[in-house]
Each structure stands twice: as C-alpha cells, then as structure tokens.
C-alpha cells in the first residue's frame, strides 16, 4: 500500500477510471498541461492524451453544458469547477439541468457526471473560493453531494462517483488536500455513496460532522476523553443523501448529539440532520441536539477567517453543554 495525501488519492482515482473506461473524460479550466491549479490532474493529460483530459475555455456555464451533452452521448464526464464559489456561474447547469435530466425524461436520459471542486476555509483564499455551498447543492433534488475527509475515503468515494449514473457533486476541502498522508490501496475499491462512517467510537455523545470538521471534531473528542467524556464521531461523507440510519443508531446508544459544520448556521446540512434526529430518535434524547457552525455572514475576508471558522474548542464547549443539560 502507498502513503498518499488526499490530492494524490484523488488523482489516483481519476487515473484508475480513465484507464478502466474509455468513456471517462476529465476537463475544466487549466486541468490539462497545468495539471489543475492544485495539481489534482497532474500528469493525466500526458498519460491519456488531449482527447481524454483537456482544458476548456473559461466559462463554467459552458463547462457544465458540455458535460450534460457529453453525458447524453455516452461519455462519463468528470468536470472540474476550479473553486466551488464559481458554481454560481453555472447554477442552472448544475442544479437546474443535470439534476433534472432523469426526472424530465421520465428516466430515459441520465447525467453520469461528476463535478469535482475544491472548497473550504482556512487557507486564506480570495472571496468566493472557500464558501461552503454544500447546503445549496443538497437542496437541489437530483444531486448527490459527497465530501470526503481522508485520502482513503477520497479515492473510494471518487471512484464510486465517477461510476454513478447520476450527477455527483464531489467537494474537496482545500485544507485537507495536503494536510496528512495515510495508507491508500493501489488497487481499486469503492465506498458507497450515502454511507456515513464512524471515525471514532464512543458512548456518551454523538458528534455528527463532515469535511475538515471531522478532524476538528476528532481533536475535540480527544480533549473530551481527557475529561472522561467518550464522544462518537460520525463522518457523514455524503451530505445528500444523508445516512440517518448510522446517525440514529449512534444516538440511540449515546442519547446525546451535536452537529458540527463549517458552513453558516441557518438552513443547511446541520439543520437537516437535527431535524432528522428529532424525527427518528426523539425518545432517545436526553438533551436537545445543538449545532456548532459559523455565523450567518458571507464567508469572511481572509483577515478574519481564523476567528470565523469553528474550531475544536467550540466543539468541546457545545459538547459539554449537551452533556451537562
């Protein structure tokens, strides 16, 4: 097995599928010779040629329209939006069109598209690069929204996404790209989309989270453990659809939960998880389910993002409030 960073695991997944299936196409701004602004597609054009891995003109709406059209003619597009804030340029393509193709055609056509994109805070990017827009995506019926938190998960989930016949928004947290390595099998494997993972077991409290906040929550769980509180940390891995079975099972065991997200508080994935816990496990709860989130402002300018983003002390504090309720 090889030690890989998350970005290497992502490249590896694309390479694997480009090899496996001649219909897989990788395209977007600067993904060719440049290998992507983060080097996620590094070396792929050289290996598979300009017909399979190619640069597009600078136009997101064009890119998603191209993907939809290629999908209709038998290809499996893996398109890149250079930073996820630029998805607004193609909200119609992504949320209005590819998400509805199956429904509109009565199941006749589909959109076997993977939309890959970096997002996420803590790396001091300019405006509209870091925004957590998964809540918007999750609200669009017809889209699956996947957010891996580890290199191992990234490879398995990306392979599953590319093989999925429905559109998958695959969001890659920038802070996780190169923050650590772990063992990633060289052979192919998939991780089921829509299946959460218990990243740490515990009996006193369930922390439901995803993306970079998985690591923040794990750190908080360690701190809580020092005080004798055993937190279970669930990584949703997919925020649409939500794996409520895993969450509810855990809540039945721990009777307490908090939901941690990097995104702003109102509406959003966290709110949905809280509502679903209420629907499915209200009689098992010993305390209200609380959230740890960012405030309801626009994603802040770089100089303020460190304070704006939730951190592990926020998680610890909220966890204790629930424990001491």
């Amino acid at each position, binding site marked *: 097995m090889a030690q890989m960073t998350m970005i290497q695991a992502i490249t590896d997944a694309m390479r694997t599928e480009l090899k496996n299936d001649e219909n897989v196409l990788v395209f977007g701004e600067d993904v060719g010779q440049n290998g992507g602004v983060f080097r996620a597609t590094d070396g792929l054009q050289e290996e598979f040629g300009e017909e399979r891995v190619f640069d597009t003109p*600078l*136009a997101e709406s064009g890119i998603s329209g191209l993907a939809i059209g290629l999908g209709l003619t038998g290809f499996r597009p893996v398109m890149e939006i250079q930073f996820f804030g630029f998805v607004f340029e193609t909200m119609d393509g992504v949320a209005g069109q590819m998400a509805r193709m199956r429904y509109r055609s009565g199941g006749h056509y589909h959109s076997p598209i993977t939309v890959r994109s970096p997002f996420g805070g803590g790396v*001091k990017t300019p405006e509209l690069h870091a925004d957590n827009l998964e809540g918007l995506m999750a609200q669009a019926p017809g889209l699956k929204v996947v957010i891996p938190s580890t290199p191992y998960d990234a490879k398995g989930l990306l392979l599953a996404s590319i093989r999925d016949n429905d559109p998958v928004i695959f969001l890659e947290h920038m802070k996780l790209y190169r923050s650590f390595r772990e063992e990633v099998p060289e052979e192919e494997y998939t991780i089921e989309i829509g299946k959460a993972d218990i990243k740490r077991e515990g009996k006193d409290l369930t922390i439901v989270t995803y993306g970079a906040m998985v690591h923040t929550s794990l750190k908080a769980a360690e701190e809580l453990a020092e005080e004798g509180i055993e937190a279970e940390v669930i990584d949703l891995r997919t925020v649409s659809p939500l794996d409520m079975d895993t969450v509810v099972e855990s809540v039945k065991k721990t009777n307490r939960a908090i939901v941690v997200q990097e995104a702003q508080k109102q509406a959003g994935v966290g709110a949905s998880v809280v509502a679903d816990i209420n629907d499915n496990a209200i009689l098992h709860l010993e305390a209200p389910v609380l959230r740890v989130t960012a405030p309801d402002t626009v994603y802040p300018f770089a*100089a*303020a993002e460190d304070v704006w983003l939730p951190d592990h002390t926020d998680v610890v504090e909220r966890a204790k409030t629930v424990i001491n309720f």
Partner: protein
Amino acid sequence: MFQILNEEGEIVNKDALPDLSDEELQELMRRMVYTRIWDQRAISLNRQGRLGFYAPVAGQEASMLGSQFALEKEDWILPGYRDVPQIVWHGLPLYQAFLYSRGHFHGGQFPEEVNALMPQIIIGAQIVQTAGVALGLKRKGKDSVAITYTGDGGASQGDFYEGMNFAGAYSAPAIFVVQNNQFAISVPVEEQSAAKTIAQKAVAAGINGVQVDGMDVLAVYAATKEARENAVNGDGPTLLETMCYRYGPHTMAGDDPTRYRTSDLDDEWEKKDPLVRFRKYLESKDLWSEEKENEVVDQAKDDIKAAIKKTDDTPKQKVSDLIEIMFEKLPVNLQQQLEEYREKESK
C-alpha cells in the same frame, strides 16, 4: 492593430498622436515606472508573507494606465482582480489596496469621491454590472462613462457577451477592455477561442471593436479617449482589446508559468516592454532622464513603505464587524450572533 509608438520608441502613426502636454507625457511615464516598482515590491512582500492575494501586473502597465489616464475623475471603474493599479491611480489610497490584498474589509471601503468597485474575483461579473452602471450614468444625465477590465480568458464567459450586448442595446456609455495578456492562467489564447481576435467579438453585440497595441501607452490612451468621447456623445460602447503580456505568474498563490510558457516567448514580449519604449520616446524629446527615473523609483519605494506601515497599523479585522455590516438593520439571528462574537472577541 492600432499602434502609435513602435518598439524603438518611434512614432509610426503621426495622425493618431494624442494631444498631451509635456507634463502629461511625463506623468504617464511616472505612473508606469511607479507601478512597476510597486509590482516588484508587492511580489516580494507577498513572498515574505506580508501581503495576501496578489496578481502581478508587470507587462500590462501601458494597458492599465494608458486607459485609466484617458478617464475623468467622475468615471466609474469596474476592475477585475488584477486591475488594482487603475483604481489606485483613480484615487484609492495605496494602503487600502494592500488591506484589500490581505483580506481586510477596510480595503473595500472606498473613499466617497472614488467611483470604483473593489476588484472582482468572479470572472465576468463586472462586465454585466458595467452595462448597468453605464445605463445609470446615462439616465442620470451624467457626462461620464463606466469602464471595465477583463482578460482574454474572461472574454469566453457568457457574461462578457451579455454585458456588451446590453450596453449596446441601451447605447450606454460603457468601455469594455480586454487585456489580452496571452494566457488565462495556463491556457493560451489560441485555445481559448477560435475567434481570430477578441476585438471582433464586438461585432456580435453591434458595438465598436478595436484591437490596440497594449504595450504602447500612447495607443491605449488614444483609443480609450476616443471610446470615451463616443460613449458620452451617445455613439455607444466600445470593446478594446489591448495586446499585452503578463511577465510574472498568474497570481502569487502557487502558479508556475514555466509549466505552460517558454522563456523564448517571455523574451520576445520583453522586447516590446512599454516602459522601455516610452522612455526612448520621451528621451528623444528630452522629457525623461535617468535622474527623473530614479526620483520616481525612490518616491515609489518610500510611499510603499509608508503604506505598508499604515496597513500594519490598521486594527485587526473582527467577525463582529462583519456581522454588523451584513444588513442595514440587523435581523434577530444576527443580533444574537453579534453578542456571541463580541463576547468571544473580548476574551
């Protein structure tokens, strides 16, 4: 391609020579030299971690400053992320440009008399907005124009066409500048579009399109001046394609131009350098000297030092400040969050 000064600094298009006084000619040169020094300092400050996001501008001074010089104070500028020099020469204090670069919101709080937006990150967004500002100026009976900038890559966005088309349809006083610096990050302009020129894209919108030598500050000035006159006279908007080059990386955030650019191409463009060419011209008219140039260099260095100091002295950004400016009147959820963050920040 419209040109006035060739690479040797000789006038090749006498009829088009703009009517500029000696002082104005010197001022144009001063601004280009100053901006080159500022660019070099910004790059090095960025490398030291003392500046935030920065997109180098060397190679584009004639395009940026020649066009800005043709504007009147009341005109509006809607810049892209690289177009910071234009708004600074339009009146934005340098230290605020540095604050913007660091991601501090005071960088976006423009002085009342500066008609400009903060640099736009979303490629194309500024172009459609320009049609709106231009129409607004026209409806308010102002004799001013709205000018916007994007790159060769930006000319591929749907918003680019929509902006030109709207401005054309309303005969709004807008000027669309595409700085064709040959690359959109790594993608060369030949791969961006099958169109022979970007200027020709004006035809589809029914507006004027002109391709200008963007390394020739006099040509850029003259073309913009004419576009401005046409715009305020009700003759509609103009698209200017300025042919130039970006010597540095795309931005300072990890771009490596050697992955997509040859040093031959760099050399070829450096021969067309706007500063060298204009310096030769001014020297031939006895309007410029090494001494003058050194004065400008020293002045720029001093100003930048002072501006950075002011940037450092600006109070740190607070989340509570950002919460306060979300709405004119705070809704209840934000009032609660404001209290939470004030308490957090007081610890």
